[in-house]
C-alpha cells in the first residue's frame, strides 16, 4: 500500500450526501431541509439520516405529501433569504411540482426584473434498474435543462456529490440536484472537509485520444467499463463526466472532440429529445470540420420504463451498448 492509497478516504455516494449536508448545516444556519419523511425516518433512501436528531425539527422538516407545496415552501423561504434544500424523493415526482419549479422558481428572478435571488436546492433520486416501474425510474433531466433559470446537477461519485452539493447549496439560483438511486451504495474517494466543485465544469475522468465519450451520472461507470474493453481493442477513449448539465461545459466537450475527431454521448434518459441531442447538435455546430463521423448517441429506447427485470435490463443502456456505439463511430468508413 502506498502512502496515497493509505490516505484515501472512502465514502458511499449516499453517505457523502448526508455528510455534506450535515457539514453545511453546521456552518450555515440559513440552510434547512424539508420533504417527505426526511425527519425521523431520515429519508426513504437514508439520505437525511440523523440530521433531524442533530439539528431539530425546524431545520429538518417532515412535510405532508404535497410536492407543489414543498417546492413552494423552498421558493418562498429562498426569496425571504434562507437557503432551503427541499427533497422530492423520486425524480418522477418532479412532474407533480412542475409548475412550482418551472413557472415559479425558475422564472421569479427574471420576472421580477432581477429584484431577488433564489438560493434553493431541490434534491431528488433518478434512474432505473430497481424494478420500480414507469413512475419511479425516470431520468427527466432533459425537461429541466431546457428551462432558463434552472441549474441541473447529476454527480457520478462520492467526491462530486460532496463538491457539487456544496456548490449547489451555496449557489444563489434554483439548482436541481439529482442523485442516481443505483449509485447510493457505491463507495469511492471523498475528502472530509467541505469543498466545491464549481457548477458548470465537466471533468475528464479518463484521458484518451481516439474518441470522446461524453456522459454523466450512472453512465460514467458504464462508460469507463466500455473504455477498458475498447482499450484492449486499441481504441483510446476519453471519458468526460459532465457533472453539471445546466450550465453545460461545452468548452471542455468541444476541445476534446477537436482533438479526438469522434464523439459519442451516453445517458440513461430516453434517447429521443434527451440531453444527448443538445450535445450532439452543439458539437456538430462547433466542431463540424473536426468530426470524422457523426456524433453517436446512447440512451434508453422510446418506451416507459418496464417493471420486469427481464425487460428493464434490455431498457437501461450499458457498457456493451456504449462500446458498440463507440466502435461504430471510430471505425466508420469515411
Amino acid at each position: 500500500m502506498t502512502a496515497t492509497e493509505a490516505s484515501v478516504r472512502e465514502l458511499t455516494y449516499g453517505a457523502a450526501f448526508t455528510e455534506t449536508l450535515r457539514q453545511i448545516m453546521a456552518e450555515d444556519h440559513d440552510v434547512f431541509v424539508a420533504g417527505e419523511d426526511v425527519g425521523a425516518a431520515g429519508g426513504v433512501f437514508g439520505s437525511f439520516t440523523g440530521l433531524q436528531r442533530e439539528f431539530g425539527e425546524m431545520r429538518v422538516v417532515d412535510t405532508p405529501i404535497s410536492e407543489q407545496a414543498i417546492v413552494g415552501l423552498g421558493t418562498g423561504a429562498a426569496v425571504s433569504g434562507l437557503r432551503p434544500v427541499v427533497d422530492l424523493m423520486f425524480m418522477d415526482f418532479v412532474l407533480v411540482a412542475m409548475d412550482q419549479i418551472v413557472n415559479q422558481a425558475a422564472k421569479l428572478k427574471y420576472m421580477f426584473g432581477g429584484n431577488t435571488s433564489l438560493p434553493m436546492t431541490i434534491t431528488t433520486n433518478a434512474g432505473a434498474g430497481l424494478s420500480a416501474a414507469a413512475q419511479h425510474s425516470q431520468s427527466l433531466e432533459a425537461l429541466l435543462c431546457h428551462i432558463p433559470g434552472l441549474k441541473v446537477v447529476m454527480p457520478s461519485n462520492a467526491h462530486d456529490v460532496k463538491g457539487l452539493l456544496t456548490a449547489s447549496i451555496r449557489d444563489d439560483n434554483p439548482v436541481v440536484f439529482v442523485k442516481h438511486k443505483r449509485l447510493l451504495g457505491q463507495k469511492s474517494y471523498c475528502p472530509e472537509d467541505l469543498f466545491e466543485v464549481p457548477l458548470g465544469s465537466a471533468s475528464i475522468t479518463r484521458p484518451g485520444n481516439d474518441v470522446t465519450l461524453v456522459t454523466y451520472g450512472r453512465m460514467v461507470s458504464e462508460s469507463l467499463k466500455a473504455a477498458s474493453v475498447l482499450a484492449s481493442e486499441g481504441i483510446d477513449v476519453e471519458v468526460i463526466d459532465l457533472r453539471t448539465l445546466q450550465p453545460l461545459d461545452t468548452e471542455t466537450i468541444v476541445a476534446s472532440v477537436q482533438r479526438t475527431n469522434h464523439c459519442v454521448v451516453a445517458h440513461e434518459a430516453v434517447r429521443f429529445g434527451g440531453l444527448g441531442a443538445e450535445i450532439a447538435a452543439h458539437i456538430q455546430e462547433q466542431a463540424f470540420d473536426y468530426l470524422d463521423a457523426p456524433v453517436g448517441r446512447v440512451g434508453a429506447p422510446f418506451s416507459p420504463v418496464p417493471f420486469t427485470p427481464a425487460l428493464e435490463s434490455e431498457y437501461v443502456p450499458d457498457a456493451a451498448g456504449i462500446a458498440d456505439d463507440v466502435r461504430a463511430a471510430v471505425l466508420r468508413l469515411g
Partner: protein
Amino acid sequence: MEITAEVLVDLHHRMVRIRRFEEAAGALFENSEMPGFIHLYVGEEAVAAGVCATLRNDDQVGSTHRGHGHLVAKGGDLSRMMAELMGKATGYNHGKGGSMHICDLDLNMLGANGIVGGGIPIAVGAAFANKYRKSDTVAVVFFGDGATNIGAFHEAINMASALQLPAVFVCENNEYGEFTPRRDTMGVDDVVDRAAGYGIPGVVVDGMDVVAVFEAAAQAVARARGGQGPSFIEAKTYRFYNHHGVQTLGVKYRSDEEVARWRERDPIVLLEERLLALDVMTAEDIEAVHRQVQADVDAAVAFGKESPYPEPSALLEDVYTVGGVR
C-alpha cells in the same frame, strides 16, 4: 344491500383471499424472490372487501400503490396477479407494470398507481364516463390518509362534486404516510372533516369491521347509483406490516404497543368471531376456506414461478395503440 349470511360468507372469503395472497407475496419479497417494491394490504382487508362486495362487475375501482387488496377484492385472478408481481409474461400487465400498476380492465379495476393521489382524477374521469353514458355504473376510488394532502385529491373530489358524478371516495386511514404520522401532516382529527369542504356527505367507519364498511359503502354506492352524487367514507384501519415490504428496518416509527393494539383487532378474526357467534359458519367451515384459499394462493405462486419472462421484443410493444384510427 342486506347483510345476509351469504354476504357475510362472501366478505370473509374476500378478506381471506387478500390476506393469504399478501402473506405469500410478502414472504417471496422478503426472500428476495420478488423484484421491486411491494406495499402490502395486510390489516386493511376489511376496507377493500367491504367496499368491493357492494359493487357490480361494471363498477370501476381506482386504486393506490397499496393496490393488491383492491384487485383481489374486485375478483382478481390470483395467478395472473402473482405472475405480474414476479414480472412474468403471464401476469395481468405482461410484466410491464408490477405491484404498483397491477390492473384488470375487464373487472374495471383501473390499476394501482405509483403516484400518491394520481389515481383519483382518473377514477373521477371514469365516473364522468358513467354519467355521460347515462348508465348507473359507479366509480369507487381508494386512497390513503396521506393522499388527502396532495393537490390531485383536492381537484378530483371537487370536480366530482361540481359535476355531481357517481363516485365514492374511500379513504383508508391507517394513520401513517410512509413513516410520518398523519397528525403531523394535517390539522384535522378525522380525515372525513375534509368532505364538508366539497359539499359532499362523509362518514367514518371502523375499518376493522367489514360489516360496518360494507354498510357504509352500500349506502354511498346506492347514492351514487341513484344519481345523487359523490360521497366520502373514512375507514379507520391499520397496516400490520411496514410501509413497504414486511419488516420495519431502520428507524422504528410505530411503537410495539400500538401495533399490538391494532393487531388485536384483526379484521378477519373479528369477522370470524361474528360468523361463529351467528352460526353462519363453523370453525371447520372457516378452516376450509383458509385451506382452499391457501391452495389457490399456492397454485398462483407456482404459476408465477413457472411462467416465463416476457421476450425482449416486448420492450417496445404497447407504447402506443397502433393503427388506432377508426
